[in-house]
């Protein structure tokens, strides 16, 4: 049982907290007069990774690559089409509602749009209190006995922790700026001291000067609370800044996964290379070779056979059109010499398998 798990021991550092195995999520497409199933959207296909305690996994990719769907699958918000998500070895798709509720205590999410993720008719105090009320019924030891005064004190402490004052409690979300609202969202996510935090584009909607404030807050909190997190973003510079491991996604598949520094210093997959070369660098002197990808990302409804990137790849070979390349670590280790057995540099590309 999850509650029986003792956290905070140094020995478990190597045990993966979050294990995603061959996760697949297909959305059916209905149409016609009788709304018959006409096809499926291959949102996430055969994705596997482990995240260890205290680690941050960055998920990058362009819109439509399935990174948000993957985040939601990990949270258990969608039923899976295949594969499994395990938290501390417990399969989250295989539990009763009551057990799921207990699991949710350990996994929380921060959303992109701080406008839409906060109830506009509740004060900030009410928004933050809701979690305590809901999970009170679980008679969890840690917060089981809080009454409303101690809850109030807890919320004030929480607000201070994310850099807001006590006065914020009585205000409504619309009275805050985007950055402050994201602070409220973070406060809500950390209020029950989760172990895993799924952050779905948490700073994408914010201005540059506020973005760095929020990133600092998240890094500090993560260090203080020993959080394990999955950080989803399309901004490669932001992902690199916060992540230990980075997985690059394209059309529902992970094409390359390695430690953050190696992804940037020695990218292997042609898509990763193109993606990195497309980031605008705030330095006019830095003249780089830019790889302009041809064409557009294909529809996830009819993903190309073989390697999904082959329609846009400049190194395309015959085998790429037929065989699906696997995320193969041993071969790529030979090529890059980066990574180790714990976190190998993995790439799914036929260039490295022949």
């Amino acid at each position: 049982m999850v509650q029986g798990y003792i956290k905070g021991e140094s020995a478990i550092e190597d045990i993966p907290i979050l294990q995603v195995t061959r996760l697949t999520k297909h959305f059916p497409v209905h149409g016609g007069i009788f709304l018959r199933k006409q096809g499926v959207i291959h949102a996430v296909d055969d994705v596997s990774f482990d995240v260890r305690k205290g680690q941050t996994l960055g998920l990058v990719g362009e819109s439509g690559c399935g990174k948000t769907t993957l985040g939601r699958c990990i949270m258990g918000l969608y039923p899976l089409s295949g594969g499994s998500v395990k938290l501390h070895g417990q399969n989250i798709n295989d539990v009763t509602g009551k057990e799921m509720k207990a699991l949710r205590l350990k996994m929380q999410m921060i959303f992109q749009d701080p406008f839409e993720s906060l109830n506009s008719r509740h004060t900030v105090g009410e928004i933050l209190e809701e979690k305590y009320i809901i999970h009170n019924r679980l008679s969890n030891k840690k917060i089981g006995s809080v009454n409303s005064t101690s809850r109030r004190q807890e919320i004030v402490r929480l607000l201070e922790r994310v850099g807001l004052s006590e006065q914020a409690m009585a205000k409504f979300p619309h009275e805050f700026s985007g950055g402050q609202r994201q602070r409220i969202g973070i406060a809500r996510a950390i209020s029950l001291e989760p172990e895993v935090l799924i952050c779905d584009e948490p700073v994408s909607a914010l201005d540059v000067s506020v973005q760095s404030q929020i990133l600092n807050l998240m890094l500090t909190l993560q260090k203080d609370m020993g959080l394990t997190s999955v950080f989803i973003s399309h901004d490669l510079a932001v992902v690199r800044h916060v992540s230990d491991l980075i997985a690059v996604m394209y059309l529902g598949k992970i094409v390359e996964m390695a430690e953050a520094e190696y992804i940037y210093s020695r990218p292997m997959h042609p898509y990763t290379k193109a993606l990195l070369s497309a980031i605008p660098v705030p330095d006019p002197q830095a003249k780089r070779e830019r790889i302009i990808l041809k064409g557009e990302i294909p529809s996830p409804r009819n993903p190309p056979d073989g390697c999904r990137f082959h329609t846009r790849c400049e190194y395309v070979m015959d085998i790429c059109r037929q065989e699906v390349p696997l995320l193969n670590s041993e071969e790529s280790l030979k090529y890059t010499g980066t990574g180790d057995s714990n976190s190998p540099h993995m790439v799914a590309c036929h260039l490295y398998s022949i």
Partner: protein
Amino acid sequence: MANATPLHQLILKRLHSNDNGEECSSGRDMKNDIILNVSNLVVSFNTENGRVRAVDGVGFKLRKATTLGIVGESGCGKSVTALSIMGLLPKPSGQIEYGTIEFKGQDLVSLMGKSTLQGKSDVRIGAALLGKPNIKASQAFGLKSDEIISQGESGKLYDMQKIRGRQISMIFQEPMTALNPVQKIGVQMNEVYQLHFPQMRRRDMDNASISMLAQVGIATPDKVIRQYPHELSGGMRQRVMIAMALSSKPDILIADEPTTALDVTVQAQILDMVNELQTKLAMSVILITHDLGVIAENCDDAVVMYGGRVAERAGVAELFSDPLHPYTQGLLKSIPGLSRAPRSILPTIKGQVPSLEKMPSGCRFSNRCDHVMEICRSVVPFEIEPVKGHFVACHKYSITPRSDIFKSHY
């Protein structure tokens, strides 16, 4: 005017009376190579809390066949500046209070008419004539569509219409909201020709649209002109927008966050294409963005805006290698760059952008600035030029010559 109806004359008379009697110079001499000179522009809006100045004394120069970047955070007035140049400020709440926008020697502000039109009917006529000529609305006033175009020959309004969409074009951030969802791409593209080249034949218009779409990198232009906007991807829509804006071969293209809604690889494609067309057509581009990386890679000059004012402007190389304004320095330092140590605490600019009603007096950045002095809180800093071609509005530089202590390390 000979065959104008009485109503027609009335409209023209009323509209003229709002022009403060200022004559625009029709001289087309180009001083140096400055194609657009915005100076001391003040734009205000009516809000619930009274009038606020969204743009307060903005000035910059756009050189011929170059790209000028305007960078700043949301609410800094960069989009309002662009809309003012186009004469597209929402009426009647938005108003140019002061300043000039000189395009090829003529002042666009006086072309647009400085004051809001009085009276309900005038506003409606004004909207019909000042904006994109709305044929239907004008017909409601008994005007035939060709009269709306021809009447301009004697009035100043025609001049602004002739400039907007013809000599100065604009593309917007979200192409889905800028394109008409119920009209095919071809029909929307032909509108530009119908307005500016009414003598063109329909078939020529179609052909021109197709060749324009091909130029912006659309693989199947003859198919796309028969499609609706929703059938295209975000990148394709933005390409269509750009094709539309460039179809009249404008001198200036204003791009308001053209790639913010797009992915980085598509952004690279689009900006690459714009740069290519810019060289080919020798046009000037104003690129508005919040991404300093986009500015660094695509612009020749840059303007940094904060709170409706210009904080700093300079050539891009100069601005990034030696930023002078504390705001620019803070912005550059706070970006999580690839050259920064991962998981390190980023330098930040404290606080947040105050709303326009709550802007501090004096320097608008004073409440967030690490180098704030007594004078900053009370006196508005003037723009000075400590290095040639590098302008900054900061008291630090007007009191003492630049000291190295203030220079940030990069």
